[in-house]
């Protein structure tokens, strides 16, 4: 939020609504009504004096009505802008705040303003509101105090919430000992016309169940569910850990009724346990209804103003459910995030970035961002004057380590002038606190004790620049990911460890130095590796924006996995028809150079200036590019010989083989078809993850078979039916209505496939997990829903481009939730299922998102290269050449000089690993920013006590 608000190309309109839109793509006129804030944003300093005197108390909407706020207020502590507003509906016009406001920022007579802006594109990112479960009266919401929703729970669990992070029962403020999370409230519920699956709530339900366990390790925590749909990256692993290691009890069965015991205010939750068939009554002292998303209030008005259609689930309708998820029927208007149906954070980010990419294609290239140099308003002292800022991370740190103690400790360290703590240092007010403290205390060096440098080093460096300090006089100490969150049950030890880490960080910041930079002219050319649906979209977006693109593909034909499919879910379109125009567009695009049957041989250089050698047949070609997008896709899990009879009996095939037979018309009329889910996915040993798409693929192919041969019996043997994605739950319901039979099996008791020795007829034996009876079904075809595995050769790609993989073997992003497109190698981005299995619309969104992110250096034309590089002390160097041999980047050469041989570093080629420094036998090499004196200072301080 802070970044968006401070971006020079972003104008923020808060407390505002769109009233009218006229015009067309490239030239929209938008009338915006700015509601009066009654506080002048330019004058308000956020001091809070007005808040103290305001006599009115109103339920706080941000805390879901659990706490109170005043009539003059800031909605929440990280709000942007951090200017107060007066809620005139509740204000009693006492004018007390006016009297207290020193900057005279309050104006009771402020009028609404109508602003007209001219824009080329519009993106709708209106999000969602939480479903209000009170229409489901039997669940007791709004009747019993101790039945709350997830968002209410989140406020209770949050350090800035009404209870300061203490999870308590609303009725008596006591800590709950038995908590039940009820899934699918307002979702998968035809009775109230909410057919859709919300996609995100299985995960946030179990996340919050885990939070109860963190607060109260002895509490009994239940999750009542229909299917656990943990179908995202590392989700299945998260689920298994909550179940097996955290002791959370998952009960398969939808809660049908909740009643209160009026004496204890405890709740009795009734449900049918689908795994035992028993009716169970679970008593709890707190029930959390994991409520689904609803289209945000005002969605229909916005639709009317923009002329957009609303789909059956109530969210905006995209142009095409499969191949145009970011666009709408109206050219120039796009959808981002949950406005196009429920999504979790990374999917929302990819979808919104996809919309950003689509929406800027016709806008031309924006003016280059100019850096404004800020000079401090005070004289910087020679002596180090350090400010230490300890972050609570909204409880992620402060719940497990004593942040007040850390602040007091830090303040006493040598060279430290001041130490402060705050709930979110990275937020706008947190950064403001740092800037103000710098000016007030005339600080010249800063240590922030918070989270990982991977996420926020840049944030705080920018903050230092904003305060006029050199951004390299800064050290981020990780007391969150490397301390509080990994020692949750040992607050004392966590606090002591944090002290050591802070002491070490302070010692390092004293010794730090400025790092010069060098501007690199960006080759305004992109390389995209992999021409599946995702890579194709990355290529088209960048090419349409005017950049040259090399699109390389290992296979002879482009189109990737999608090309091999017969039809798409949930639209049942023939993929050929959807894919063909895109392939033609790629082939004929004047900005795209397509290289098929081509593989990467080597890569060197850095963001803005890579040299990649590719091989096509016997021909080697060098490509000079500025950015690289990896859209390398996935491979199919190949069942072992004899796994479910695969390769022994020709009638045991994979879903992909089935699609090929269907596509070529070779699939003959069967009597019984049995599909087996989770082959090579969700395994105890081997692939632990859920492959995300196979349930949907099975549903689709089951439907196709039933449509073609209505007499054929189709069985789907599954563990949890993960109809994941927009309209897929509705699709699942349709497949059920069509008579496809679903049999749940237990992971411990997988189906057995055997063949009759004489007739070779296949027989599938499975124990139905609901009725607990073993059944045998003869089958003409057994179709294995095999999982998805990392692409063949992915290890080599990691090595070539200096990137990493997550435990599941897929490519690793900078941040699983917040930065899904970037890798740890600057200028190298990920698109599509290379990061994790994805369906077509998600692959498209991510491909376009990668194009959007990759276009930033391409548009800017220049990147700054931090010269964290090796330095040679020529007085000491004897030119032995060990460094030249060890350097993996050919960045060091031994040169003859009048004084003899000496090592010379090419600072553009040098990547700053420091191998040469450690290898130099006489100490002539050093690495800027990681010099021995800097490392040893932090090491000595780290182990000092």
């Amino acid at each position, binding site marked *: 939020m802070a970044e968006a608000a401070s971006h020079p190309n972003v104008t923020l309109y808060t407390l505002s609504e769109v009233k009218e839109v006229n015009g067309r793509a490239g030239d929209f006129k938008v009338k915006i009504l700015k509601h009066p804030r009654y506080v002048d944003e330019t004058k308000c300093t956020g001091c809070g004096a007005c808040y103290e005197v305001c006599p009115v108390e109103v339920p706080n909407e941000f805390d879901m009505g659990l706490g109170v706020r005043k009539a003059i207020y800031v909605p929440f502590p990280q709000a942007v802008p951090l200017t107060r507003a007066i809620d005139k509906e509740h204000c009693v016009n006492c004018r007390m705040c006016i009297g207290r406001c020193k900057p005279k920022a309050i104006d009771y007579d402020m009028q609404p303003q109508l602003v007209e802006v001219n824009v080329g594109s519009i993106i709708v990112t209106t999000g969602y509101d939480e479903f209000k479960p009170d229409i489901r009266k039997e669940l007791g919401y709004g009747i019993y105090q101790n039945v709350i929703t997830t968002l209410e729970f989140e406020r209770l669990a949050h350090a800035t919430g009404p209870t300061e992070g203490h999870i308590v029962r609303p009725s008596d403020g006591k800590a709950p000992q038995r908590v039940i999370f009820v899934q699918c409230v307002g979702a998968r519920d035809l009775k109230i016309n909410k057919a859709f699956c919300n996609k995100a709530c299985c995960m946030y339900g179990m996340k919050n169940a885990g939070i109860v366990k963190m607060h109260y390790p002895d509490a009994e925590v239940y999750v009542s569910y229909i299917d656990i749909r943990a179908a995202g990256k590392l989700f299945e692993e998260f689920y298994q850990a909550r179940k097996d290691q955290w002791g959370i009890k998952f009960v398969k069965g939808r809660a049908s009724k909740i009643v209160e015991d009026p004496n204890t205010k405890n709740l009795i939750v009734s449900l049918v346990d689908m795994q035992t068939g028993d009716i169970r009554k679970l008593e709890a002292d707190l029930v959390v209804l994991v409520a689904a998303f609803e289209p945000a209030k005002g969605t229909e008005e916005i639709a009317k103003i923009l002329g957009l259609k609303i789909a059956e689930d109530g969210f905006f309708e995209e142009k095409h459910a499969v191949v145009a998820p970011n666009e709408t029927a109206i050219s120039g208007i796009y959808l981002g995030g949950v406005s196009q149906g429920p999504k979790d954070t990374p999917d929302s980010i990819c979808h919104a970035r996809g919309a950003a990419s689509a929406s800027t294609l016709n806008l031309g290239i924006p003016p280059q961002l100019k850096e404004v140099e800020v000079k401090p308003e005070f004289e910087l002292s020679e002596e180090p004057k350090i400010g230490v800022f300890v972050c609570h991370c909204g409880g992620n740190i402060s719940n497990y380590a004593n942040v007040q103690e850390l602040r007091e400790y830090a303040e006493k360290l040598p060279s430290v002038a001041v130490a402060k703590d705050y709930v979110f240092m990275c937020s706008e007010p947190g950064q403001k606190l740092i800037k103000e403290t710098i000016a007030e205390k005339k600080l010249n060096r800063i240590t922030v004790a918070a989270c990982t440098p991977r996420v926020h080093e840049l944030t705080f460096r920018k903050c230092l620049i904003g305060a006029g300090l050199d951004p390299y006089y800064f050290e981020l100490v990780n007391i969150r990911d490397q301390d509080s969150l990994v020692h*949750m049950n040992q607050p004392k*030890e966590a606090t002591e460890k944090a002290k050591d880490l802070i002491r070490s960080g302070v010692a390092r910041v004293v010794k730090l130095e400025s790092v010069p930079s060098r501007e690199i002219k960006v080759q305004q050319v992109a390389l995209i590796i992999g021409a599946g649906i995702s890579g194709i979209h990355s290529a088209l977006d960048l090419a349409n924006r005017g950049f040259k693109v090399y699109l390389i593909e290992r296979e002879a034909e482009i189109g990737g996995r999608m090309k091999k499919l017969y039809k798409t879910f949930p639209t049942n379109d023939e993929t050929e028809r959807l894919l063909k125009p895109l392939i033609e567009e790629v082939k004929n695009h004047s900005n795209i150079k397509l290289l098929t049957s081509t593989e990467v041989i080597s890569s060197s250089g850095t963001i803005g200036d890579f040299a990649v050698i590719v091989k096509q047949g016997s021909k080697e070609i060098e490509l000079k590019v500025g950015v690289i997008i990896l859209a390398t896709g996935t491979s199919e899990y190949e069942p072992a010989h004899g796994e479910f009879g695969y390769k022994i009996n020709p009638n045991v095939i994979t879903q992909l083989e089935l699609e090929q037979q269907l596509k070529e018309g070779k699939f003959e009329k069967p009597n019984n078809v049995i599909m087996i889910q989770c082959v090579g996915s969700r395994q105890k040993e081997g692939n632990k993850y859920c492959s995300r798409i196979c349930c949907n693929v099975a549903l689709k192919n089951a439907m196709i078979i039933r449509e073609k041969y209505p007499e054929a019996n189709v069985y789907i043997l599954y563990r949890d039916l993960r109809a994941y994605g927009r309209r897929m739950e509705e699709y699942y319901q349709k497949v059920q209505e069509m008579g496809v039979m679903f049999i749940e099996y237990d992971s411990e008791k997988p189906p057995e496939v055997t063949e009759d020795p004489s007739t070779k007829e296949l027989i599938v034996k499975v124990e139905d997990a609901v009725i607990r009876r073993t059944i045998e079904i003869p089958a003409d075809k057994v179709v294995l829903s095999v999982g998805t595995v990392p692409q063949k050769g992915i290890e080599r790609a990691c090595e070539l481009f200096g990137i990493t*993989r997550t435990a599941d073997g897929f490519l690793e992003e900078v941040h699983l939730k917040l930065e899904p497109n970037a890798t*740890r190698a600057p200028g190298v981005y990920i698109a599509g299922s290379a990061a994790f299995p994805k369906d077509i619309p998600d692959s498209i969104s991510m491909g376009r998102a990668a194009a959007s992110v990759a276009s930033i250096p391409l548009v800017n034309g220049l990147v700054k290269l931090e010269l964290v590089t090796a330095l040679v002390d020529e007085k000491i160097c004897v030119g032995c050449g060990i460094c030249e041999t*060890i350097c993996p980047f050919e960045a060091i050469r031994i040169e003859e000089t009048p004084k003899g041989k000496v090592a010379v570093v090419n600072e553009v080629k040098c990547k700053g690993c420091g191998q040469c420094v*450690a290898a130099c036998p006489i100490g002539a090499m050093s690495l800027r920013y*990681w010099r021995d004196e800097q490392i040893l200072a932090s090491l000595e301080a780290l182990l000092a006590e």
Partner: protein
Amino acid sequence: MKLQYNPSVRMLRLPCTGRVDVLHVLKAFELGADGVMVVACKKGECAFETGNLAAERRIMFVKKLLNQLGLGSDRVNIYFLSSGEADKFVAAVKDMVEKVKKLGPSPLKK
């Protein structure tokens, strides 16, 4: 993942394990560390291509030194894992702590 591990570990960040100098490791022992674990990228996945292998060579050398000094070569170990493999990191910490516990507190501790 929030997997929990022994809080006696202290982290020092370096740009690459290829930067790890024999001097740094010995200094840590001089300052009283009971053990030093070097956590490097997986082999073949080093962002700087060979940094982890260079570190491995140096750690093998330090192991010899520690043996000669009578401190025990198990006081220093190198582990290869990716930043996405929290489970492996936790297992490495466990392994390291067990090894050091077997050897007892460092005799260099003041």
